[in-house]
């Protein structure tokens, strides 16, 4: 094995209909008009020396190494900033160029340490490579003049010298090694869009400066690592590279955090992971990443990982390590006993949206074919199930309509109930880039999230609505579009059911949805609603990006359909730059839904009552399947409390921490007789488990993930599973213990079964994925290369379906006892329940869940910044510390749920979406009051949790 090669063409590819032909060193080449000489040369295989150029950034022309001579032109222009012109004749190597480059290089090296042998970049240093390329043999100036290298020079302190900044946990900044090529500064601006870096000073004083010349950790830096990747020297270096050394081989794989689905090169030394480098050819991320994907993978070797199966009789007993056979047999025996005693439908399972498609497929197959019940569900229940329902109803498919590259053609971007710069950072950066290029921005969110105003990005309209009023706002926007004659009637006539449209138009035109009526309800000025609607309808390509702020409501499904209505009414569907785009939460939540994780649906979103579909599975699996829908997660817990649901197999999901109304979840789990948890760590749910099956990380298995753009990408094994088995092997072993004759030798064989039984995956094979990198479903005979954009000529369901979206306020209301509204979410550095990210240095950015509260509400309650406060709802109460900020409106408070001891979900209620039971995390009526510290229930839980994680010493 070797490192996956990536060619750096020096400057970006240019798209143009015109081509120009040039001659470089005697070779002729035709390139798109606007292509740089540097890139054209590289396409011929000629590497012109360069330092400040790299093809992920705009050309800059500062290093003066890439000079060329052009016949008929004076001087020696930089090849990175000079575009090819017709019939240009270029020479990249002449006596004059050689001398110039040598002189430039000599100057660079005269102010650079010569510790190459012990330098972390040794083997991966562009400066060293260029010194070699230009034939530098001596530095006539010596090293003793003015320099940035030595702490002391000429017997005095060197005021040019700056010590190494090691404040960031993942990389170091060593100014002594900096050649001021600006690549890091430009990466921070152009790729990430944070603008945390700049060059301070001029001339010889020029230095890379995080923030206002602060340490990285004190600056605005979000630690995405784009600067580290861009650095040609050891100035910005991963601490892991410093610790381990240069990698010797790499494997392309897909990130296991968030629904963006970034692809990375896992750069390895043996089986030790050295670093994750985002892959330029990754179609979801185009070479970018965030702090989680690039850096937060230390959990994979964390000492907390459980590597041996464990069982216990009662949840008050300590765990006992046992063999795989004993653990699996315990599960089979218990499940059989329970089904014998309480009936077939007394058991069920939860598939993991953090696991691969193949693993999800096996878990739902085990539950349906092995347990003989449809009691299977997945975390999408608590996040995007309303997307599945809403988009299937309106358009005919349960997924987003675009690829991420579509953002590059959007003119108006609408972000509703999503915080992309935190939750989906790479998409956030892409959105910000497009906005910097001139796209307009509408944000509909109760909080002033970062993208509302951030360097060089400002929302045209921020509709800071009261939590729970999405349907009112969106239907009111529809009112404006229809009553002001802004609907795209040609599109509607061609693509939608026109009768339904007319009925819907009359419905939204009613005065009860006029912005003036809706304004007092939502807290959004009528003018803003009108302006936002007009811009969306008339601003060109308009694209909606939305998140859990849309779905996690009593009316989540209705909101999704209201969004679908807006896109249809304005014709913003079926081409690049437009569409309806759910930002999916977990890495494979799209895939887990596709793979049949819902209790009413077989893989490919086909209802379980469909006899023909069911028969295809029955024939393939040689079994009979139940034709009735099974229980959804909240229903399972309700049924458990009532005694009709007794055993559960949970793969890679921590429902005790992540699901709402934690007291009820705990009661449900406690009522079960056999809880089986398969996970990397003893998670919170495992506190109630009887059997623990150790899981494996994404680095330890083969498979596929499907991201929010329906993109199916390979996950490739880079190291042996520390627990001995990949998760699909654990499920297979469990199935065999249940007497099922499963013999998959490799996940590719599971994908063959998926393709054979699921029409939208019919064309997917590992060979195809290896050949083309990734495909977006549907991938079948009709779309052999997949489908970047959906509903191009017609909606999948035929005619687009307008749904009447009546605003029905949630029953969760504020009142004298609970006057504030709590909404919950996540932040950049942590992921979901935090089981992975809390076991990395990411805790330096977020050590505890905080309660964001407006200064007005805080003052009324005598709460100061950092004080402990109690937050109380009708479901329960917890205490945490307050962060006073006007990001939240008066009357609204906000927290995250990343830390188990906070128990944020003790406060959230059991209200849920009418169609899917997706919980209403985003609206809880609460009261906030000062507190002395954690509450009794939190202390008790901490003690219980500690007690529950005891592992008995192994018996001989």
């Amino acid at each position: 094995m070797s490192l996956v090669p990536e060619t750096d063409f020096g400057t970006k590819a240019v798209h143009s209909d015109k081509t120009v032909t040039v001659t470089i060193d005697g070779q002729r080449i035709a390139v798109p008009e606007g292509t740089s000489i540097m890139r054209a040369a590289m396409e011929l295989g000629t590497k012109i020396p360069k330092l400040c150029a790299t093809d992920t950034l705009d050309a800059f022309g500062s290093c003066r190494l890439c000079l060329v001579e052009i016949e008929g032109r004076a001087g020696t222009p930089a090849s990175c900033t000079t575009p090819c012109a017709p019939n240009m004749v270029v020479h990249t190597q002449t006596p004059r160029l050689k001398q110039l480059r040598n002189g430039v290089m000599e100057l660079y090296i005269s102010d650079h340490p010569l510790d190459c042998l012990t330098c972390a970049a040794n083997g991966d240093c562009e400066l060293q490579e260029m010194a070699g390329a230009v034939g530098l043999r001596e530095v006539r100036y010596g090293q003793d003049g003015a320099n940035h290298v030595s702490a002391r020079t000429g017997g005095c302190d060197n005021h040019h010298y700056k010590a190494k900044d090691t404040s960031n946990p993942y990389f170091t900044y060593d100014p002594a090694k900096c050649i001021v090529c600006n690549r890091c500064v430009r990466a921070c601006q152009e790729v990430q869009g944070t603008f945390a870096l700049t060059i301070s000073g001029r001339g010889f004083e020029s230095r890379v400066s995080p923030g206002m010349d602060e340490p990285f950790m004190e600056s605005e830096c979000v630690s995405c690592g784009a600067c580290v990747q861009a650095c040609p020297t050891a100035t910005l270096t991963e601490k892991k590279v410093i610790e381990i050394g240069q990698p010797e081989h790499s494997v392309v794989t897909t990130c296991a955090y968030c629904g963006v689905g970034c692809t990375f090169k896992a750069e390895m030394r043996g089986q030790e992971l050295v670093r994750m480098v985002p892959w330029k050819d990754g179609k979801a991320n185009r070479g970018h990443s965030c702090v989680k994907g690039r850096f937060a993978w230390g959990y994979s070797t964390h000492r907390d990982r459980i590597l041996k199966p464990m069982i216990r009789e009662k949840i008050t007993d300590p765990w006992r390590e046992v063999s795989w056979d004993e653990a699996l047999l315990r599960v089979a025996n218990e499940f059989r006993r329970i089904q014998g005693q309480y009936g077939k439908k007394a058991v069920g399972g939860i598939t993991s949206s953090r696991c691969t498609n193949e693993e999800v497929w096996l878990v739902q197959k085990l539950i349906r074919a092995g347990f003989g019940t449809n009691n299977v569900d997945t975390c999408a229940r608590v996040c995007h199930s309303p997307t599945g329902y809403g988009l299937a109803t309106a358009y005919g498919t349960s997924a987003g309509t675009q690829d991420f590259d579509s953002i590059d053609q959007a003119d108006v971007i609408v972000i509703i109930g999503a915080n992309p710069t935190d939750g989906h950072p790479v998409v956030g950066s892409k959105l910000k880039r497009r906005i910097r290029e001139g796209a307009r921005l509408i944000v509909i969110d109760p909080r002033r999230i970062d993208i509302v105003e951030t360097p060089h990005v400002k929302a045209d309209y921020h509709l800071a609505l009261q939590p729970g009023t999405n349907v009112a706002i969106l239907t009111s926007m529809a009112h404006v579009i229809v009553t002001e004659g802004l609907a795209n009637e040609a599109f509607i006539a061609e693509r939608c059911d026109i009768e339904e449209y007319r009925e819907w138009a009359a419905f939204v035109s009613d005065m009860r949805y006029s912005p003036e009526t809706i304004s007092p309800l939502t807290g959004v000025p009528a003018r803003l609603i009108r302006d936002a609607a007009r811009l969306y309808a008339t601003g060109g390509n308009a694209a909606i990006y939305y998140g859990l702020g849309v779905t996690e409501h009593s009316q989540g499904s209705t909101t999704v359909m209201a969004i679908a209505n807006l896109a249809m009414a304005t014709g913003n569907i079926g081409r690049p730059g437009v569409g309806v785009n759910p930002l999916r939460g977990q890495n494979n939540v799209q895939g887990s839904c596709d793979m049949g994780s819902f209790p009413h649906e077989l893989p490919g979103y086909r209802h379980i009552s469909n006899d023909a579909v069911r028969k295809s599975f029955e024939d393939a699996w040689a079994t009979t399947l139940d034709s009735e829908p099974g229980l959804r997660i909240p229903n399972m817990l309700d049924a458990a409390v009532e005694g009709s649901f007794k055993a559960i197999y949970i793969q890679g999901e921590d429902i005790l921490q992540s699901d709402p109304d934690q007291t009820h979840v705990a009661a449900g789990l406690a009522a079960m007789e056999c809880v089986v948890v398969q996970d990397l760590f003893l998670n919170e749910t495992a506190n109630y488990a009887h059997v623990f099956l150790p899981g494996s990380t994404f680095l330890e298995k083969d498979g596929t993930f499907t991201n929010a753009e329906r993109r199916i990408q390979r996950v490739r094994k880079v190291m042996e599973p520390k627990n001995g088995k990949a998760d699909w092997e654990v499920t297979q072993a469990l199935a065999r213990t249940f007497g099922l004759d499963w013999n998959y030798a490799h996940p590719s064989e599971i994908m063959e079964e998926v393709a054979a039984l699921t029409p939208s995956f019919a064309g997917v094979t590992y060979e195809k994925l290896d050949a083309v990198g990734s495909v977006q479903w549907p991938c079948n005979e009709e779309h052999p290369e997949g489908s970047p954009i959906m509903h191009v000529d017609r909606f999948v369901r035929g005619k687009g379906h307008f749904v009447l979206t009546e605003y029905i306020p949630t029953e969760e209301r504020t009142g004298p006892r609970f006057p504030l509204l709590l909404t919950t979410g996540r932040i950049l550095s942590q992921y979901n329940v935090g089981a992975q990210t809390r076991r990395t240095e990411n805790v330096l950015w977020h050590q505890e869940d905080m309660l964001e509260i407006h200064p007005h509400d805080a003052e009324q309650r005598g709460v100061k910044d950092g004080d402990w406060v109690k937050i109380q709802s009708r479901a329960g109460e917890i205490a945490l510390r307050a962060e006073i900020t006007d990001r939240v409106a008066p009357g609204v408070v906000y927290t995250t749920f990343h830390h188990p001891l906070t128990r944020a979900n003790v406060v959230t209620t059991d209200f849920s979406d009418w169609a899917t039971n997706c919980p209403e995390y985003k609206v809880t009526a609460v009261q906030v009051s000062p507190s002395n510290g954690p509450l009794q229930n939190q202390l008790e839980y901490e003690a219980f949790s500690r007690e529950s994680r005891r592992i008995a010493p192994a018996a001989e």
Partner: protein
Amino acid sequence: MSSSKLVTMANQIALAFQAQGEERALPQIRAHVEKFWDPRMREGLRVHLSQGGDGLDPLALRALAD
């Protein structure tokens, strides 16, 4: 399953379809429950209906009682 939860859920479903008018709403309410509720939930609701359907919205009552 506790009838109060089932009643809440059934009422939410009924309200969501109400805007379409009773004639179109009734079969859709029924179909939604058929399509997404596990049999024990449907049975729970049936038992509750047989005891008078206390707390059910009139539309839900008309859609689900038969």
